[in-house]
């Protein structure tokens, strides 16, 4: 079994004593390389918190988060930044593109952070734009793109650094259902063609249908884990 993501008894508490909120409560999951997994559950069930812990954006109160065998729960500072940069791609609900950069530049920026030479960056940018079917729109700023197009740029940006895992927090929440389904189809195609591990959160029924595995969270606990 090639588990790329393993969480062991992960807890994440906010606040203290009387006001303590258990966002995650001993959540343990294992995700294999190349899986296309949806984390589902109602609002407040801990989906975003789990994704943030897997993505190294937050540290657990207890437990372990192992990415490809490395426990990132103990990482801090530049080590964690570098790990995120090189191993994890993020897709955010609100796209979160840099508004003053064009689509091409947004995709290129993460490679700049990786120290990839300019010529190589340019080549990969065009490849990514082609993959997300945005050929010819690379010079547009985010404000000149539709929501669906912006999210595809975000997908391209997430893939540009050639990460092991792509984490997407409610990637379709700001899109209409048709565009959302199209985006999921695109992500699934990329998953199949590039064997890239995708983990995304959603509470949209139509989107869940596209996932191959559903991990259901309830009150911070893994309620069910269903392989389709």
């Amino acid at each position, binding site marked *: 079994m090639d588990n790329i993501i393993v969480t062991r008894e992960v807890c994440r508490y906010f606040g203290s004593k009387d006001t303590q909120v258990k966002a995650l409560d001993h959540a343990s999951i294992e995700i294999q390389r190349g899986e296309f997994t949806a984390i589902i559950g109602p609002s407040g069930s801990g989906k975003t918190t789990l994704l*943030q812990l897997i*993505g190294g954006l937050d540290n657990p109160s207890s437990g372990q988060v192992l990415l490809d065998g490395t426990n990132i729960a103990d990482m801090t500072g530049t080590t964690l*930044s570098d790990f995120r940069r090189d191993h994890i791609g993020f897709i955010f609900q*609100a796209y979160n593109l840099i508004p*003053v*950069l064009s689509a091409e*530049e947004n995709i290129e*920026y993460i490679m700049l952070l990786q120290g990839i030479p300019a010529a190589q960056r340019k080549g990969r940018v065009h490849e990514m734009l082609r993959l997300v079917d945005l050929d010819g729109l690379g010079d547009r700023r985010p404000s000149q793109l539709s929501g669906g197009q912006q999210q595809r740029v975000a997908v391209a940006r997430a893939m540009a650094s050639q990460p092991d895992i792509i984490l997407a927090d409610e990637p379709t929440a700001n899109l209409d259902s048709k565009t959302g389904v199209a985006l999921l189809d695109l992500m699934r195609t990329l998953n199949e063609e590039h064997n890239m591990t995708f983990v995304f959160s959603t509470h949209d029924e139509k989107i869940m249908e596209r996932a191959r595995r559903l991990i259901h969270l309830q009150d911070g606990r893994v309620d069910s884990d269903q392989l389709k």
Partner: protein
Amino acid sequence: MLELRLAYRNILRQKRRSLLTGISMAGGFALCTFSFCLLEGGWGNAVDIFTLDHTGHIQIHSNDYHRRPKIHKTIGERESIEQILTNHQEITAFAPRVYAPALAYANNQTRAVRVVGVDWKLEPTTSRLRQKVHAGDYLDNAMTSDGYAKAMIGAGVANTLDIGIGDELVLISQGADGSIANDIVMITALVGTRTSWDKMNVYLPLPAAQSFLSMGNRVHEYALQVADSNANEVVARSLQTEINHINPAITVSTWQVVEESFYRTMQSDKQGNYFTMVLIVFLVFIGVLNTVLMSILERTREFGVIRAIGSRPIAIIRLIFLETIILATLSIAAGVVIVTPALYWLLTTGFTLPTPIEFGGVTFDHLTGRLSLFVLTVPALLIYVFAALVSILPGIRAARITPQQAMASH
């Protein structure tokens, strides 16, 4: 390049705010440059007048004559010293002089004067003595038809003794050998004005003064002009080394040492002005700091995203630094455009003072600017240093933003 583009475009996000910030920086730069140019010009003119009027850029004396003048503190090795001065590439002119206090008698009145012996040929190459003659003829070594040495007197001597060109003047002093020196000289020219520093001077040809004071061929001073006045300290040091081989008791001093009080006053005034300028730029940059902090606050989420995708904190600090430096560069460019016509006017026309000011025997009636490496570089450097400093705090603040905080701030 992408990082530069990002920084540049971030500046353009809030065009009006960046414009206002840029204008304040450009204004600070222009004000600094103009003030420094005026300051350099004002004091530069004063130094020129000072050094060309009498002092020269460098002076050579025996021992500490320049601090404690005594008639017997003389330079005897003239031939060797003049050979060094003639051969030195940086020295453009030199003139030997002798000085002595004396009593001047005429029309049944006596006044204390200063006798100055000058080489009538070399002195005009070193000072403006010839130009200051406003009546009569400039000195020469020839005797008058009555057998008297020629003399030029300051306006104060002429006025207090009520004498003029063609009158005889009796001089009484102490010779360098301890003897009583006395002589009669014929006034052939009037020098300077009633307010000029040399109003009580009596100029004699060098041989006549040496004879009057029983000095033989010795002199009290050499005044020197150098090609680059800013390099006079270097020239003075090299001269001192050379002259030490002849006589280590001979001292080579720059005008800054000879006219120490004037130099200190000038330096104090300059430093006061520099401090004021730095203070103005500092106040300008408090506004800039506020702008940069505001811009960080507005982009909290964006910095969070950049941190989330793997940017190191230092990359965020670098981005803020770049933004501030680019804005500073654009402001300096605008400042150059603003200040260039003003500088041109200051350099070519300048201010005419409604009332001339006299300071240290030098009269100023006109102020023009002067360009120097200092004037051209320091204001820009000041802007860049402050820009770099004010980018540190916002940079650190931006770098400390965690992705989680950023997402929550939306």
